[in-house]
């Protein structure tokens, strides 16, 4: 026994050594950029969202925090940090506190396989998107947990809706990804982007780098697939017209009704991060990811980041734009769209793309 204890003590420096190992540090540093990116991006998007919505609605939004309210997101976050954190007495406190972690981790882990440029990618596993879809299922559990733990009926309804929604749209998302994977033969988003490198004509949206006849045949199907992927992705991140879980006019705030202060901020952050995640996946799979649309012009790892973020932000913008245009679906219509529209269409696409590829 004595010896056991001694050995355990001895173990500690060993672990310490291991952790101090340079590779671990490199890993940690390697994992940090997406986090910084998420934070910056969230600030920018919060601001953009409000400004875009405002201008769509003929108004101006933030004006008094910095030049044209540019510091507003900073103020919001600083404010949320100092906000009291209420935990309802009747809530299941453990789960209530755990839920934000799951939601954020599920989202953030997805960023591990996003190729920001040809040179940077959190983790180069070759299962890329597949892993990403799997990781997002942690979010489902997180949302269910938050809704249930709040012991609030609106939260519960919201959580149920979001679970139904995420679960339903996972099938179309995965099937749409599948179509791209069939064409590229790889799940690694970096590889997929590389596959489409060389200009706009090589993007899978436009048929991919194929012989011209194949390309033309593929084009309608890839286009439909892309559309479905994008819409299903929007549904997965609860944006209008699929924003039922937090449908303000119906369910107050949905699953995060009882959350305040920092925990709420984390849900918020996760939601915005998810928006980018969806755009990033759509971009990488169908729009060449980090590759420049002009062939070798303006390409390279650094430009890669630029292109990638630009393309991603463009779709984030489209999401915002749609949000402030469209009304919201009802929950049974949501199911209808997923199961009876998207899924059959994708089956058709899979068969068609499969046939075109082998013939």
């Amino acid at each position, binding site marked *: 026994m004595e010896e056991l204890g001694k050995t355990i003590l001895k173990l500690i420096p060993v672990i310490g050594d291991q952790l101090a190992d340079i590779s671990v540090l490199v890993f940690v540093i390697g994992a940090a950029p997406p986090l910084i990116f998420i934070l910056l991006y969230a600030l920018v998007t919060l601001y953009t969202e*409000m400004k875009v919505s*405002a201008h769509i*609605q*003929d*108004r*101006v*939004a*933030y*004006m*008094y*925090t910095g030049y044209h*309210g540019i*510091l*507003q997101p*900073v*103020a*919001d*976050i*600083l*404010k*949320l940090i*100092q*906000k*009291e*954190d*209420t935990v309802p007495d009747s809530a299941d406190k453990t789960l209530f506190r755990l839920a934000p972690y799951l939601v954020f981790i599920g989202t953030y882990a997805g960023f591990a396989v996003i190729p920001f440029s040809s040179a940077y990618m959190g983790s180069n596993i070759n299962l890329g998107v597949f892993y990403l879809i799997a990781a997002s299922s942690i979010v489902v559990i997180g949302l269910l947990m938050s809704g249930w733990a709040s012991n609030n009926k609106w939260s519960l309804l919201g959580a149920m809706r979001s679970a139904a929604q995420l679960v339903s749209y996972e099938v179309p998302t995965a099937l749409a990804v599948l179509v791209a994977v069939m064409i590229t033969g790889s799940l690694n988003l970096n590889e997929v982007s590389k596959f489409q490198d060389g200009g706009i004509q090589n993007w899978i949206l436009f048929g991919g780098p194929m012989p011209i006849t194949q390309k033309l045949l593929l084009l309608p199907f890839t286009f439909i697939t892309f559309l479905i992927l994008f819409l299903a992705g929007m549904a997965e991140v609860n944006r209008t017209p699929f924003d039922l879980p937090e449908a*303000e006019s119906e369910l*107050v*705030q949905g699953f995060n*009704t*009882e*959350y*305040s*202060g920092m925990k*709420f901020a984390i849900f918020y952050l996760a939601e915005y991060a998810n928006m980018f995640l969806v755009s990033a996946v759509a971009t990488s799979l169908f729009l060449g990811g980090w590759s420049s649309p002009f062939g070798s012009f303006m390409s390279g790892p650094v430009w890669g980041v630029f292109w990638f973020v630009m393309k991603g932000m463009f779709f984030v913008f489209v999401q915002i734009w749609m949000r402030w245009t469209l009304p919201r679906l009802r929950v049974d219509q949501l199911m209808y769209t997923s199961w009876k529209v998207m899924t059959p269409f994708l089956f058709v696409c899979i068969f068609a793309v499969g046939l075109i590829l082998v013939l």
Partner: protein
Amino acid sequence: MGLLDYKFENSNVFITSVENLLNWARLSSLFQMQFGLACCAIEMMAASASNFDIMRFGVIPRATPRQTDVMIVAGTVTLKMASRIKRLYDQMAEPRYVISMGSCSNCGGPYWEHGYHVLKGVDRVIPVDVYVPGCPPRPEALLEGIMKLQEKVRKESLARKKQIV
């Protein structure tokens, strides 16, 4: 908890600058509770609509009290509603502020004399920070009320925070 809360008797330079930053954040990001009672609520909506656009001051409507900072009591507070208002106020996370908008919530307004079912002033149930007069106050008046509140928040200090009810 709340390590910085109530912990300082008097402030020094460092605390003051932190305080300024925090106050700035609080005052420029006042989430408003989406909550209207009567006619004044329409002017409140008008204030958030395009022509006046209350969001320029960082006031965003949120539906749940947990995430809101300022409750704009806009309209007539009736006896039946008073306990609900009190409950909603209780459920707001601190720091929280109340703007009483319009004659009715200031003191019963036109209903002060014969209103058997009207609470004569919302300050009988919850503490009010700013009173905006008018019946209904013009949207600009509400904006001015918000600016008054911001002034008040700016002067707050970590050392002595607003007491709870």
